């Protein structure tokens, strides 16, 4: 495993948050840290976490495969999560999602990376901001009341920024 030294340091900080005989509890925190570093959970990370916590690889694997936020493949540089659930849908969430799909020429369910590898659009369940529906989480930032016009505007920003790179 080739992890950044900052990641390794955080990993060593988080393990003692749990009792010494309950290191397995650190599985989710470690997977989050690795995913933030690498962008996804590679197969070798599963072995690595298991060895680090003194558990079996299957124990880590079953966690990676259950939780929707963990992924075993790389995704686009930007991750657009559009809320699909009722309050957002009642305010046009499906249209918002379709606009992002159109803008990046991709599919949200199951999530695909845009052909240029830049953006992954995903339709996700309630993001707990139903009062400002429809909502979209782009990487770590929440965007509220995202109608089609706002979706286009956000997409343009992402595209402009991609061009600058």
């Amino acid at each position, binding site marked *: 495993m080739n992890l950044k030294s900052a990641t390794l340091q955080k990993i060593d900080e988080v393990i003692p948050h749990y009792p010494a005989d309950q290191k397995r509890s650190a599985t989710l925190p470690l997977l989050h840290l690795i995913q933030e570093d690498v962008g996804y959970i590679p197969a070798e990370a599963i072995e690595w976490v298991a060895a680090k916590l003194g558990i079996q690889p299957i124990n880590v694997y079953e966690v990676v495969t259950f*939780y929707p936020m963990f992924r075993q493949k790389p995704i686009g540089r930007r991750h657009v999560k559009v809320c699909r659930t009722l309050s957002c849908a009642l305010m046009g969430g499906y249209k918002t999602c379709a606009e992002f799909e159109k803008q990046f020429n991709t599919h949200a369910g199951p999530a695909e990376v845009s052909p240029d590898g830049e953006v992954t659009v995903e339709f996700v369940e309630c993001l707990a901001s139903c009062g400002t529906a429809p909502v979209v989480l782009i990487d770590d930032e929440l965007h509220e009341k995202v109608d089609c016009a706002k979706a286009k505007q956000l997409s343009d920003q992402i595209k402009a920024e991609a061009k600058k790179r």
Partner: protein
Amino acid sequence: MPAPAQRRIIFQHIDEPGYTNDLACYVKHGGYEILKKSVARPPAEIMDEVKKSGLRGRGGAGFPCGFKWSLVDRKSGKPIYLVVNADESEPGTFKDRYIIHQDPHQLIEGIMITCFANNVKQAYIYIRGEFPHGARILEQAIAEARAAHFCGPNVLGTAYGCEIYVHRGAGAYICGEETGLIESLEGKRPYPRIKPPYFPAVLGLYQCPTIVNNVETLCHVKYIADVGGDAYAKIGTPNNTGTRLLCVSGHVQKPGYYEYEVGKITLGELLYEVCGGPLPGRKFKAVIPGGSSAKILKFGESFTLKNKDGSMRTLTVEDIPMDFDTLAACGTMGGSGGVIVMDDSTDMVAALANINAFYAHESCGQCTPCREGSLWMKKISTRMVHDTARAEDGALLKSVADQIAGRTICAFGEACSWPTQSFIAKFGDEFKAYPEAKKAVKPAGALDLV
């Protein structure tokens, strides 16, 4: 009659200009004074205040908080844990988000008072993975509080110490269920545990006695420790004490979050006066009053309920006070406080299909009736919308739902059946007429819900 005024206790500083989420601002507004008072009291006294307050859990089940604490096994010799449920995953619910992001120290003070009262030395905040900033804000707030000796070893110079750690989830709704949450915190798949024997109060985290409380509940505890249980019990209505955060979303003019004394505002006042009524040219059709699992209410239906003295009263949907007991008597629940409103533009079959897709996605898969049933309810209702619909599909949906509730390990079984059962009970005609109705051209601007 105008709606009663909000009573902002928990949301006192939410959206207040100039109020920031750092320690200095919190302390400037009197923060941690109640903790200071509390650590000088016998812990049992605080537990007693919470019992007297009548506080009921704000996470969904409305379970009395003081009673929950009294169930904790204190003789086992094992450590007692506090797990804060910050998973906020019930669709329609968005209240804990604002406490976490804007007033994290209020929560931390509530946690510390709860831990001191229950002799807890280790607390975990389980926060949903989709709140990355929330997790960082809490971590920062804990670090600040620890440096000022409001948590960590030797709290405020006493012999008492308690650590708080933040633990992030990863996008699974079932982690909101308390035993699923505990499994997740142990680093496993969040498969809920069977009760008995795995009551958290006895066999919780690491098989130790554990208290699981919602974020909002713990903020109320802080307030109770300040004003006392008797004074708190005077807020709200009998058996439904205190204030409660109500989250309104969907088809209203002014969606948002509001704090009212429990039972002092009716659903009609909330939706018409506080939230400004329906969107222009529309009429209210239905409302889910307590998160997406709560049974739906249909505008126009009425409920005949028994009064304490044996006489009867009739309530329309608009008349229902937003308390735990009346909503339950009307066949639904106050749940998590998430009020989802649908107007006359809503296709009820599609709305149910939307909800069913959520539950099919979120079932943990342990129990056959839930895993298979939630999937079939999704498939049938989605087929009705996107493919062929049959007049008997409503009855079929109901038969699937009826075979789930009561036959599962956790309350998700009920949570996923209640929408179908109540939609069919109240909008059965719409389901029956769907094959014909579908042939009509969709009105311009009609939204897809599934």
